C-alpha cells in the first residue's frame, strides 16, 4: 500500500480558531512533509519530520506546528487561523535519504 491518507479532505474554519489536519502512511517512511498550495502557485514546503526531528521552514516558523506521535501519523496545527491560511494542504512521505515523495490527496482548508 503506497497511499498517504489525509483527514479531513475539506475543512471550514473561522478566523482566529485553531485547525488540526491529520496525515497517515503505512509505508514505514521515516520522513513526512507538509506543503501548502495556493492556486497558481508552487507547492510550498512548510515543515517536515525526519523520524522524531521536526524541521520548520524559516518563513513559516511561527505559523505552523506539527506533531508526530508515531511513525505513521503526522499532524499540522494552526493555532489561530487567518484568511491567508486558506489553501490546499498536502502531506507527503518518503523513505529517508534521496527517495521519491508520495503525496496524499490533500486537505482543502477554507477560512472564513
Amino acid at each position, binding site marked *: 500500500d503506497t497511499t498517504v491518507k489525509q483527514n479531513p479532505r475539506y475543512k471550514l474554519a473561522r478566523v482566529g480558531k485553531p485547525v488540526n489536519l491529520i496525515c497517515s502512511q503505512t509505508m514505514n517512511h521515516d520522513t513526512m512533509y507538509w506543503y501548502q498550495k495556493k492556486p497558481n502557485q508552487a507547492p*510550498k514546503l512548510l515543515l517536515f519530520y*525526519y523520524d522524531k526531528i521536526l524541521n520548520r521552514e524559516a518563513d513559516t516558523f511561527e505559523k505552523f506546528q506539527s506533531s508526530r506521535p508515531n511513525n505513521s501519523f503526522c499532524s499540522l496545527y494552526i493555532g489561530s487561523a487567518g484568511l491567508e491560511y486558506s489553501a490546499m494542504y498536502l502531506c507527503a512521505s*518518503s523513505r529517508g*535519504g534521496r*527517495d*521519491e515523495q508520495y503525496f496524499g490527496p*490533500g486537505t482543502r482548508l477554507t477560512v472564513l
Partner: protein
Amino acid sequence: GQQVKQSSPSLTVQEGGISILNCDYENDMFDYFAWYKKYPDNSPTLLISVRSNVDKREDGRLTVFLNKSGKHFSLHITASQPEDTAVYLCAAVGATGGNNKLTFGQGTVLSVIP
C-alpha cells in the same frame, strides 16, 4: 526569489503531438530533478525523475532531458493523449541534511485537444 521556474503557465497540444514542458532552476546544488502530474483537487503524482549524473531518462512516452550547464530540464511527452491533460509540476532537490526537500515550480497546465 523563486528557485525553480516554469515560464509557461499553459500549453496546448494536438492529440498525437509532442508536449514539451520546460523548467529552469537557479541552485547549483540541486542534484535530483522530477516531474509531477496533478489533477484539480488531487495530489501530485511522481511521473519521472532523474539524478544529476545523467542527462536523459526515458520511460515509455516520457523523456526527461537535463541540461546542467544551462540549469534547465524538460519533459517530453510523445503521442500526447487527452488523458495527459493536467497540471505538470517540475521539482528539484538539493541535499539538506540528507532529506529530500522538494522545491516546486508553479506548474504548467497542459491541454491535449482531440
